[in-house]
Every structure is written in C-alpha cells, then in structure tokens.
C-alpha cells in the first residue's frame, strides 16, 4: 500500500505540490489526470526519489516503510517502478547488460544470489515475448536509436523483468500510435499480478480503455481537486477540465 499525506514539494525553490493526500491499496489502479503543469510528473518523480525535487512537508509510506528516507535505488528494490515519460539513452551500455545489472542489484538487496547468465537470458527471452519487443534491440545500447514506440515498449519490458509491486506509468501513451498503445497496455495487463497496484498518469481516456482504473483523480494546481470512478475520466475526455475548474472556483 502506498500512502501519501499532505505532500508538499518544490523544484528550484518553486512549490509545485501543495498538499497531496492519496492512498493506493494493493491491487488498485489509480489514474491521475490533469492540465499541463498541474504537478503530475512532479508527483511521480517525488515518489521514485528524483533528487531534483525537494519534499518540504508531508510523508510517503510504502508498505509501512518511510519512502522519503530511502535512496532511489532502495525504493526500486522495495518494488517501485516508473515507466519514464522520456526514457533515457545510455550510449555504449547494451540493454542486456543494463538489465542484468538492474535485476542482480535487486536480487542482492533481497539477499539472493545473482542470476546465472543462462537463467537470466531465458527470463529475458520470455519477458521479451510478452511485450513483443525485438531481440535486436537487446543488443543495442539502452534506448539508443529506438523509435518512440520501441522506447515505451522497452519500459514495459523492464517492468516485466523487475516484477514491481507498484508501477507508475508516466504518460506512457504519449507519442504512441494506436497499435503500439494497445501492445504496451496489453503487455502491462498480462504482467500485472492481482496485488500489483499502479498509478497511471495520462491526458487521455484512450489508455484507460485498456488499463481500467479503479479510481480517477484530477490534479490541478498541485492539489487533488476531484476524485471519482472510471466515468470521471470519460467525462473529462468529453468536456475537458473547465467544469472542474469552475467547481473549485479557479
């Protein structure tokens, strides 16, 4: 369970999050929608521990652990995963080596032996099929020369390899055509275990057609201003955010 209380955060001294309260129980999918600059990406970056953002007040706990006292990699070992809005390129480091380092770092943190090469490659092969990602990409440098769709698919592939218990999909749908979107979303659904929870950040309903949220939140001006069921996302798709802004008097 992820529990966020009264979270305030700044970047370069400017306050972006102004008191977020959010509880995501195991197995639940929460969608976060909102206008540009509302603080959606800040929220996900604060959860994973991007040092650029400073938490000035409030708390985040994950399965009872104080997340804010943990390093970014420790949060990852605890089961948190983020699919990046803009996946990063690492020249000269092959996907295979990168994934091996990540998988074995997590295993080490959990007190497990590193995977043998053959075992590791077998798991790679299985997971690759789930997200229909080409073997050729695995020998290339991390995200280098990948198309937009391949990069996003690669994020879901990494999620498959790391088997997190809480996933953040940060605008995973941006830059994807309909087919790629379907493959990515279906991959996510296949990988998801009953107790996997997720926070899905998106501007559009179309991703939520595939990944069905239990709860939808609207983030505006650094606060969650409205929470509802899946129909809230549909309403936003049709009517935009203006009616919500009117409701809260903005």
């Amino acid at each position: 369970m992820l529990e966020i209380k009264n979270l305030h955060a700044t970047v370069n001294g400017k306050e972006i999050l102004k008191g977020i309260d959010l509880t995501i129980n195991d197995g639940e999918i929460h969608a976060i929608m909102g206008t540009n600059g509302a603080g959606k990406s800040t929220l996900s970056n604060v959860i994973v521990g991007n040092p650029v953002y400073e938490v000035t007040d409030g708390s985040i706990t994950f399965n009872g652990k104080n997340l804010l006292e943990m390093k970014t990699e420790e949060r990852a070992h605890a089961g948190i995963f983020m699919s990046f809005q803009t996946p990063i390129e690492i020249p000269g480091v092959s996907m295979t080596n990168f994934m091996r380092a990540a998988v074995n770092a997590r295993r080490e943190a959990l007190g497990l032996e590193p995977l043998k090469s053959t075992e590791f490659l077998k798991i790679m092969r299985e997971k690759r099929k789930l997200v229909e990602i080409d073997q050729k990409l695995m020998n290339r440098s991390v995200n280098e020369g990948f198309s937009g769709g391949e990069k996003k698919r690669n994020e879901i592939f990494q999620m498959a390899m790391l088997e997190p218990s809480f996933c953040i999909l940060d605008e995973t749908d941006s830059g994807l055509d309909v087919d790629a979107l379907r493959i990515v979303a279906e991959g996510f659904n296949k990988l998801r275990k009953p107790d996997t929870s997720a926070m899905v950040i998106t501007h559009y309903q179309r991703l939520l057609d595939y990944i069905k949220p239990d709860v939808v939140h609207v983030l505006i001006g650094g606060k969650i201003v409205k929470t509802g069921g899946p129909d809230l996302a549909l309403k936003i798709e049709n009517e935009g955010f203006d009616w919500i802004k009117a409701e809260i008097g903005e």
Partner: protein
Amino acid sequence: MSEQNEFVRSVAEKKYEFGFTTDVQTEIIEKGLNEDVIRTISAKKGEPEWLLEFRLEAYRYWLTQKQPTWGHLKLPEIDYQAISYYADPTAKSADGEKKELDPELVKTFDKLGIPLEERLALSGMAVDAVMDSVSVKTTFKEKLAEKNIIFCSISEAVREYPDLVKQYLGSVVPYRDNYFAALNSAVFSDGSFVYIPKETRCPMELSTYFRINAINTGQFERTLIVCEEGSYVSYLEGCTAPMRDENQLHAAIVEIVVMDNAEVKYSTVQNWYPGDENGNGGVLNLVTKRGHLRGVNSKLSWTQVETGSAITWKYPSCILSGDNSQAEFYSVAVTNNHQVADTGTKMIHIGKNTRSTIISKGISAGKSENSYRGLVKVGSKADGARNYSSCDSLLLGSECGAHTFPYMDIHNNTATVEHEATTSKINEDQLLYCNQRGISTEEAVGLIVNGYAKEVINKLPMEFAVEAQKLLSVSLEGTVG
C-alpha cells in the same frame, strides 16, 4: 599515525588493490647519478663497450638539457641524485651463484594475476615479468623459439643477439629525442625484446608485466619490438606499483619497427599507483613510445587504458614512412583525485596513402586534470594521406578539468584531415534512470563510463578488456553523489 589517517589509508588501499610490497632480498646500488653509476649498471649487465658508449653519450646529452615544461602539468622537482638507478630482486647470493627464483617473487606475480609457471599461465599468453630493474622470468621462450621468435628481456637480448639490438636500439627514439628519452637511454635497466621473423604470425599474445617494488628507485624500462616482413604480433603491457608516500619515477622508452606488410598491436593497461586522495605519492609516468612503420602496407595500433600514475606524460606515436601504412591510436585516460594526465599521440605521415585514426576518451573526476595532446603531421610527399581524430572528454564533478590540444601541420594539399571533439558531463537523468531500476549510483557510473569507453575497450584482447572494465569502475568509486 592518527586513527583518522589510518582510516583514510585503509580506504585508499582498498581502492588500489595492488599497493602491497614484496619482502625480497634486493640488491640496490647507491643513490645518485653520474658516469660511474652508468658504468656500474652496464658492468652488472655485462654489456659490450658500444652500449656503454651509447649510455654515456646519452647521459652527457641529458646533462645539457632541461626538464620540459610545455605539458599541462606541474612536474615536481625531481632530485635525480636521490634515486637509485638499479635494484635487482634476483641478486646473486654471496657465493656468486644465481639463486633459484625467490618464492616471494613468484607469489607476488601470482597475486598480480601473472602466474610465472607455464602450466598455470593463461592459455596463449607468454609473459616477461619485470620487477624494478630486472626481468624475473620470461615464459614460453622455448616454445616461441621453435618458430624462431625471440621473446626475452632486453638485457638477455644484448648478450644473445647483440647485432639485432645494435641495429635497432635508438633507431626509432634517439636519445636526443627528449629529456626523459636521454635519461632512459643513459640508465635503462630492463624491458622486453621481441623479434618476429619474416612471414611469421606469433602464435600467442606476448606481454610484459612491470612491477616497481623497491623504495626510492626509478624504473627505466626499455622495450624493443621488431616485426619483419609479413609478420604479426599482439603485445600487451601491464604495470602496478606499491603505495608509497614518495613519488616513484618511471621513465620508459618503447620502440617498435614494422616492416612491409607486417602488423603490430600494442595494448597497455596502465595501473601504476596514482597517489593518495590528497595527491601524495604516486608514480611519475614519463614515457616515450613510438613505432616506425617502415614497410609498405604495414600496420600499427596503440591501445591504452590509463588509470594509474600521479602524473602521466605519454604520447605513443607513429611514423608512417611506408606507402599505404596504417596507424591507430585508441586511448582511455581516467584521472581522479589529484592525478594529472597529459597524453595523446603523434601521427607523422611521410609515405603515400597513409592512414591514421585517433580515438581518445578522457574521463576526469575529483580535482584531476586530463589533457589530450596530439599532433597530426602530413609531409609534402604524403599524397592522399588521411587522418581522422575524435577526442571526447567526460567530466564527473565540477572541480576537474579536461583540455584538448590538437596540433596539425599539413604540407600536402591532397591530404584529408578530420578532427572532432566533444566535452560532456555525466548526465543526471542517466543516473536517475539507473537508480530507478535499482542500480546504485556507483555501479551506474561504472556502467556509463564503460559504455563511454567501449569503443576503445573493444580493441583490447579479451582478458585485458575484462580487467580494464573493472579498473575503470574501481578508479572512479565515490566520484559522484
């Protein structure tokens, strides 16, 4: 020693894995440098008169010269009288008999991963192991001799093959070349001699491992490689030294001669003790390496991974005389703490249609300074000469420096010379991405740096490449975050 110092030392020691010393009976001649010392060295090695004369001429020339100051580095004042110029850990016992190889020496090289017993050796690699001033042992000599390949210490070569040595010694790097070349020519001790006869492909990698052990001594390595027509050799060089608070001097010369259609690959993983994190101690690595591509279609490539030494001053170079000859220089130089490296290459195009490639990757961390210095010279007769140079610098942290000094001297307008240079900082986004996948910052830096250096590392023979990758990560521990 205070508790804190003890701690600092233990941390530093952990980082420099090879900082131990070997307790072995070593014959060290008295400190100081004069003609008598040179005569003593020459006599100990039983050298012919012409070589003593060569040394004395070099010495007399050296006396007229001053230490060069053009490098982007501050060489400490070197007191040449406070150094001993000959240290022999295999010294004879009192009765004059050459004793058996001291087990301590065998253990030392074992610890360094260089087994001196052939049955334990890495398959396909012959080693000449040099400690201080003397070659301790050369492996696989007999096996190589079956193909008429000569692989031995330079001292032995002087005794056994004086004509070959006389013909080539100083032919690529004359003692007048520079200050440290003159010093080396006067006092050089040991190093390797390689001779590959015509149309012979050397069946194994040849390597020399240099170890400085004795205190207050300098090491003056001298290596000479001659590759006759149509022959091939891959040669590797490794080096380490104990941790000491004083600087240790290593002034070497490597000469390579490549005849028609012959090819030499020379790889170095340089891991001399770099000094502690406050800049105390460390090896002063002042080296002249040069290859002469005399023959048509000859090839020479220098690949170096430089992680050690307090100061590195080194420009492995190529003279491309033979038409269609090809030269390559691949370099990764890492500097951390207070290390200073001024390194690069010279490509001198003389023959027609000669080609050279320079790939240099500098990585600086801590308060270190890392410079690339390179010369591309195309002579008036070098029609169709081509050079491509690419010099990249990666900065870790904000207190280090990276510099590029490319010189071009082109006297033929059919030549094509390209130069590219970039400077980048390690990217915070890349670190975050790795961290989010559970990879610690330290490991992430290792991955990113190895990725950055891959183009060069890939040029190394397999075993060396693995070693070099580890070394890159270890040298940069604790530099970010």
